[in-house]
Each structure stands twice: as C-alpha cells, then as structure tokens.
C-alpha cells in the first residue's frame, strides 16, 4: 500500500465530527478507505487520492474520473436495502496544501461473501440469502436508475450486522444514459472469473443490460450454495473456461447436494444461461421464481 498523499492528522483536523482510525481499511487505485465513527455509528470515510483542481468553483462543475463518477452517481440514484448507499454526499476537504474529495458510506462488519465462502460458510442458507438479495439489488438498480453493475462478485458483496448481503463498488457499472466504458480492445469491463459471456464479446453494448447482472448473480449464488465456482478451476486455460461459459449452464446436481431447493436450483441454472435471452426478460420474473417480490 503506497502512502497517502496527505497527512492523517490533516484528515482528522478537516473532519472533526468523525473519529477516524489511522490505519486505512484499504486502498484502491483511486481512493483510500478509513473506518470512522460518528454519533456512535461505524462508517467508512473514503478519500480520493487524486487532488482536486485548485480553481474548482463548485462540485457541480467537477469532472471526476469515470469510475468514481459512476460509483457516486450509482450510490446517489439507487435506494435499495442491498446496494451500498452514500451516508454523506461528496465534499471537498483541504488536506495540507491540496484539496481532496471525500464521502461517507456505511460500514459493514460482517466481512465479504468471499471471506464467508473461504470460511466454509457456503450452503443453503447463505446461497438463498445471497440469491434473494442480489435479485432485489438488480431490480432496484435497473428499475430506479437503469444501472447494470457488471462486477457482482464475492469480493464486492459484504454482509451487514444481520448478515444481509450488500452490493458494493459501482465503479464499472453501466449507466444506460452514459457513454460505455470499454478497455483498449473495445471489450466491456469485467472481472474475468465473474463475467457473463457477453462481457467477453466486442460491440455487445446492445445486450449489456440487467440480464448480465442476472448471470453474475447466478455465479455468486452458485458459489454461495456450493462453495465453488461453477466453471472455474485452478489450472484451467482461458479457451476452456470460455467454452464452458458459452456451452451452457451446469446442472442442478451440485446445488441440490448443497441443500438448495429444486426450485432455486432451477432458478440459479437459468440465471447462468449462456445467452441473455435464456435468462429472464424482467427481474420481476426471476424474483417471482425465487419466491420474492
């Protein structure tokens, strides 16, 4: 972890209403996250590592890096019990001789889904909870703000005090009103092990919609039920992996052995259909099959 571009004492002084821990929770390419407490509630204070322009008049005119802009827009526009929200909107703080953008998110003490799976907590209970929560999250993101998360993976799902799954990191979310983010090859951004088949294809913007998130929910739900990824295994080469993805969903056997009900097993397998048209044409239909909504 590279050192913060500002002194911790400056951050403490700039945000006196927060009791901030000096050891960061984590640091990404764009921001540093600190656990903090305000009014007896644990929160996460996030500070961008890139200083703001000195001639900035107003936050309204600020041009944020794409990923940060999308993440903040997503958190502002979606109200969902299973999608991370902003507790405090972005503001500018003077830290030393430069200005930095900061904002506040809730703190989730239950760890990530990835950690829960590593601790062998996978099973019917975790699987069903994750399945229902992610379907609700997708429903809310798509129907409130036409957002496709595109990066639903165990490391981006945290558990709150009551073990409710919360989806984090809308940094590569696709907003249907915004320009598409692509990499140098024109491919949709993704985490390879947690990507839908269409995210590996070029110029597939037309079919990147909530159904891409349905596929990703199928992946994480399968893993939450069984403790293993439905397609990936150590040592597998890329071509074989992509072939598995495209050749269709795994069967229900492993899910049933993990204690998944037959109805939910069929749902998870359908979410993993290789083509968007093989999933569900509305989130409501998927939630209905899940017994939710």
């Amino acid at each position, binding site marked *: 972890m590279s050192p913060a571009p500002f002194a911790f004492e400056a951050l403490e002084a700039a945000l006196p209403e927060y009791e901030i821990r000096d050891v960061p929770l984590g640091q990404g390419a764009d921001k540093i996250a600190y656990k903090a407490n305000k009014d007896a509630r644990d929160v996460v204070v996030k500070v961008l590592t890139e200083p703001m322009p000195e001639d900035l008049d107003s936050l309204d005119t600020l041009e944020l890096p794409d990923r940060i802009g999308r993440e903040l827009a997503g958190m502002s526009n979606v109200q969902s019990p299973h999608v991370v929200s902003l507790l405090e909107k972005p503001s500018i703080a003077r830290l030393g001789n430069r200005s930095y953008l900061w904002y506040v998110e809730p703190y989730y003490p239950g760890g990530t889904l990835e950690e829960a799976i590593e601790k062998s907590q996978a099973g019917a209970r975790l699987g069903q909870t994750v399945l229902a929560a992610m379907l609700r999250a997708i429903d809310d993101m798509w129907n409130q703000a036409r957002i496709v998360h595109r990066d639903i993976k165990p490391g981006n799902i945290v558990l709150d005090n009551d073990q409710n799954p919360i989806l984090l990191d809308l940094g590569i979310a696709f907003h249907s009103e915004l320009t598409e983010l692509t990499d140098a090859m024109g491919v949709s951004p993704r985490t390879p092990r947690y990507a839908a088949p269409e995210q590996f294809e070029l110029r597939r913007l*037309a079919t990147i*919609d909530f159904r891409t998130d349905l596929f990703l929910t199928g992946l994480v739900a399968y893993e939450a039920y069984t403790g293993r990824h439905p397609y990936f295994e150590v040592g597998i080469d890329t071509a074989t992996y992509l072939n598995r993805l495209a050749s269709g969903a795994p069967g229900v056997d492993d899910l049933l052995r993990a204690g998944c009900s037959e109805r939910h097993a069929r749902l998870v397998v359908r979410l993993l*259909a290789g083509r968007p*048209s093989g999933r569900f044409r509305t989130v409501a239909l998927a939630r209905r099959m899940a017994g939710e909504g």
Partner: protein
Amino acid sequence: MSLYVQHGYGKANKISEAARYPGTVGVILSPGDEDEQSLSMTIGRALQDDLRVLIDPQTYVYGLSPGGSARKHAQNGIDFGSIHWSDDLRTIERRVSAVGNLGDRLGISGKMIAPSGLQYSFADVWTPLAFQYARTAADMWGPDRTIATIAIDEGALDDWSRVADWLDVATTLDVAGFYLLVARQRGTYPAAPWSGARLSNLLKLIYSLAIVNEYEVIWGYSDIEGLLGLAVGAQGIAAGWHNTLRSFTPAKWQPSLSQGGRPPAARYFLSNLLSPLRAEDEVSLLYRSRLREEVFTPVDRERFSAREFDSWTRPEAQSHHLAVLSEHAIRIVRLGAINDRVAYLRGLLSNASHLFATAKTAGIALPGLYQARVESFAESLDSFVREEYL
C-alpha cells in the same frame, strides 16, 4: 384453446362453424381482403361466438420486392404504398397510428398486432425497423396491448447464432407477445418438407420467446406445422379455409401473371398420418387397402362406410381440416408440460411415419411429400429436444 382461424374473406358463418371446434380460440382477420364494413360484421359475429379477434395489419406487403399491394388496405386507411428500412420515426409513428385507428374504429379493445416489414435474415437492414415498429406500437397502445410482428423468410432460420443474437435484443421488447410469420416458397399444398435446421431453429425461437421469456406467441398461417409450435410452447397457431391461408407466402401479395387454374382437389386430413391427402385418389387408395384399420380412425371409417370419396366436397374438406387440426391442438395443449407435449407429438409422428413406410412396402403409391414432411417434423423435434436439453 389455441387455434385461430386465419380468415381471408367470405361469410362469417364459416367462422361460427369453426368456433364450435373445441380448440378454436379466435380469428385473425385480413384487412387486405375485407373493407371496414365487412370486417366490422365479421368481428361482430366472432364476438358473438366468444372468439378473440386479432387483425393482421399486413404491413409486410409494402416491403416486398417487387412491391406488393392489398386491394382493401386503402379503404381501411392502412395502404402505406411502400415501406423502407430507413423510414424515420415520424413515418413509423404515423403508420402505427393508422393501424391503431383502424382497430379503434372496429372496436378492438384487446391486443393488437403491430406492423412490421418482412426480414430476409435476422441481421439485415430491416431488423432495426421491425424492432422500432414494435417499440412504437408498445408506446402508443401500451405494452400489454401490443403483439409485435416477426415476419421472416424461412432462410433467416438457417443460422442459429444469428437467431440467438436477435433473440437477445427481441427479449428486451416490452410487449405482450409476438405474431410470428415464416415465409415459405410458393408451391404445392401441403408445403414442401422443411430443410435442414430451419424448423428446429424455429422451434427453439418459439420456445425461447414463449416458455423462457413468457411472451404470448401466435404462429400465423402455421397449419399442421403449428402443432410443433404448440408442443414447444406457442399459445396460438392459425390456419384457414383455403390453402393460401395455411402457409405464409408473401408472393400472393405481389403482381402475378397467373391466370388461375383448376380448383384444388378436395383433401381429407387423415389424423393418423398428420397429412391432408387427396380424397378422391390417395385417400380412396388407402381405404381400399389392408391398412384401413390403422390409417383411418373409427370416425373416418364410419364417415366413408356409406359414401364414395369422390362425393367429398371442398367445403366439407375445409371444415374437416380445421376440425382435425383443432382436435390435435387441444390434445397437445392439455398435456401442459413441454416434455409431455413433445413426447406425445413425437409419438404421433412416429406412428405416421411408420404407416407411410408400411404403405410404401405394400405398394401403395403416395407422393413422397407426405412422408418427407412428417419425417422432417420428427427430425426437427428430436433436434430441438437435444439442443434444449429437454
């Protein structure tokens, strides 16, 4: 109930007769054949018979090359002259509005079929236009009232990857359902056997729309092939009195040098063969053979116990055809689960194929078309089952 009468023109009392068949659910009317007054009378009769009424706006007529026409469209306010894949949104809105206005004048308060052009592939320049017609109609009439038209040439079904790409987009349409039309080459009746993977891909398309994505799918002009559509999830199939209403052939709307000809021979729909054979010679030949008990149902045998096949009239044949189709349709639909429907139909096809083979062995000379059709149906169903992992 799942059979629609694909109506052209003629007396509405024929529709009333079809309404008595147990599988008949509605009628699809042709504004190209009837003016507003006739349509209105036909609708009134159909509603009295508790039939659902749909109107095919037949806009695909105007995208044909050479251009097509329909003689009553102008009187119905839906003669669009020609449509082009580059038509702008305002033009599309005007046409959808004209179709909607016709529906309003005729008192159609339920679902309406949206206009569309004919697509020769699922990736040609007409595809975006077809989507735009559906979206515009859903916007104007409401998603719950809109049935999008998919009018395609059968060649569009050759490449499944193209169909699958199209499905990924089509399933984003917020509409109630799809009115599916598959253009086949103009030819004899019954239509030629399906080639290659076309029918199998069509069944996969229907399954994806109707079962996976829960749209209402009505396969127009589908006739006997429609039974396969019902087996894989379509909610409606359609066939009419005449051969031209049992196969979607856009050529009938195009200029033709044909001077007409002899009226077609009366056919008899042999339920056990799933085929309409010529009554006077082909059916008669089978009836006089040792295969009578296997080929003819007790009802068939009773019917011809005291009359000759040359006394079988065309009006009788027309009515009987829809009655048998309706019976098959309702039996399939009542089975419920797709696996059961497919297994049932596969059994019927297997039996029909066996009977044709036995007839051949027995020296009964029937045109190979019938057996080839039944076998192409069976192959397509088998392929569908394999590819959908049913």
